[in-house]
């Protein structure tokens, strides 16, 4: 589905991604874990076409020129972005936040389905987006890319700061869309949660992928990894 080869990225003179290779197969959920500042967010921004100072090849479903396209074209090829700050608009109502992205995939969630899954969004659909609580905004950000029918989701710490109950709900949704064949590249600091939803995990350190682990390896080394991540 997604292939990244030899990706480098800079902020000014500082190189924050070094020769990153990554492949995510269709229907897979793959996480990126790493300490603060490791370059996880930058990696997603490069894939989304939001970071100009990067080199390397990014392909989507055999479209080798994907990495040269402008951000809005990439989104329209079926990529949904949940940014680390949720990206909820204050000047749009909750419902407008949901309807802003064009439909980009063959099987988008309808508005009734979104509201059935997230009843609180229906209740508040006329509120300004930023009048929602932090947790509700995270739900909205996820619901928004589901509504667009994106086939590849790039999710930047969607469970950060959520109550265990909401984390569990996000887990259920991720398993549900995975069953429907959606692919997810997920930044996730909650290792336990990561092993319950994902297939594989990549450990990013100082801009490099230093290890790739499956769920068994993460569980076996959970204490060591948590200590490394400083959580």
């Amino acid at each position, binding site marked *: 589905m997604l292939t990244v080869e030899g990706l480098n990225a800079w902020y000014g003179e500082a190189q924050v991604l070094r020769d990153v290779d990554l492949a995510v197969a269709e229907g897979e959920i793959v996480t990126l874990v790493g300490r603060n500042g490791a370059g996880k967010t930058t990696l997603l921004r490069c894939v989304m*076409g*939001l970071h100009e100072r990067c080199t390397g090849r990014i392909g989507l479903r055999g479209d080798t020129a994907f990495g040269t396209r402008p951000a*809005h074209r990439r*989104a329209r090829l079926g990529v949904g972005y949940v940014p680390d700050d949720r990206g909820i*608009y204050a*000047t*749009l109502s909750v419902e407008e936040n949901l*309807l*802003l992205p*064009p439909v980009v995939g063959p099987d988008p969630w309808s508005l009734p389905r979104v509201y059935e899954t997230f009843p609180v969004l229906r209740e508040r659909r006329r509120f300004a987006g930023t009048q929602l609580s932090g947790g509700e905004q995270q739900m909205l950000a996820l619901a928004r890319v589901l509504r667009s029918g994106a086939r590849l989701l790039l999710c930047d710490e969607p469970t950060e700061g959520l109550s265990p109950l909401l984390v569990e709900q996000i887990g259920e949704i991720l398993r549900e869309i995975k069953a429907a064949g959606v692919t997810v590249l997920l930044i996730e600091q909650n290792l336990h949660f990561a092993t319950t939803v994902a297939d594989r995990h990549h450990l990013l350190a100082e801009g490099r992928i230093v290890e790739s682990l499956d769920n068994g390896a993460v569980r076996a080394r959970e204490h060591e990894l948590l200590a490394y991540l400083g959580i």
Partner: protein
Amino acid sequence: MSGFLQQCFNGLVSGGFYALLALGLAVIFGMLGVVNFAHGAFFMLGAFGAYVALAEFGVPFWAALVAVPALLFLFGAVLERTLIRRLVPFDPLYNFLLTFGLTLVLQDLVKREYGVQSQPYPRPAELSGSLDLGLFDYPAYQVFVLAAAVLLCLAVWLILTRTRVGMVVRAATERPELTRALGVNVGRWVTPVFAFGVALAGLAGVLAAPMRAVNPLMGADLIIAVFAVVVIGGLGSVFGSVLAGFAIGLVQSLGNLYVPALSQTLIFIIMAGVLLWRPAGLFGREEART
């Protein structure tokens, strides 16, 4: 009492011009991040367009009211495509300088052709009389201008809040980069939004022709006050700009009546006060554009 009310009416009429110009400035700033210094020159072109249309081609006011803004829309679109767009990626100062230079060029071109003296423009015959507003008689044309300004602002507000185009403009104004990442081709809307702002300034110019002196500097005199209005309303806030436009027109007009010594400076005193109290303006958001 009726003198007071009449002065209020005068204030709202000039506030209508502020509001129309500030509205265009606000949507252009919001969507492009460009402080369009040439907005006053477009206003002047609108008035001159109406004058030339009548004097040279015999085109009546009502036709000019449609045709001149349409031409300015095209002019704005070409300008955005050929010049403004190239400078947007750089420091906003470049476009400020570009539009400042453009203002001088446009003013001088008009000056060369028509001189600096004011040109007469008759009121349309249908609106040449006055209306009995109960407490006083008021020129029908002024009533028309006020109604047109209010309706235009209302229409733009409805477009912004009730249509998909408006939703895209709001989203692109608030978070341009994120909006692209969500699949919206923000670039496609930039030209029409800029051209629309220019056309709105031109329309205000046509409306001004029968009641204000039509001369090459009419826009330059106005634009400084409009900048103050936009700052008071909150840079980039469409609602704030319109409200501040009418409010400042009203306050200025009453100021003329009660404290004539301050008539020219009142608006800037208000601006300074508002900025001390709310640095982002009355309806501006505090966080900086990204």
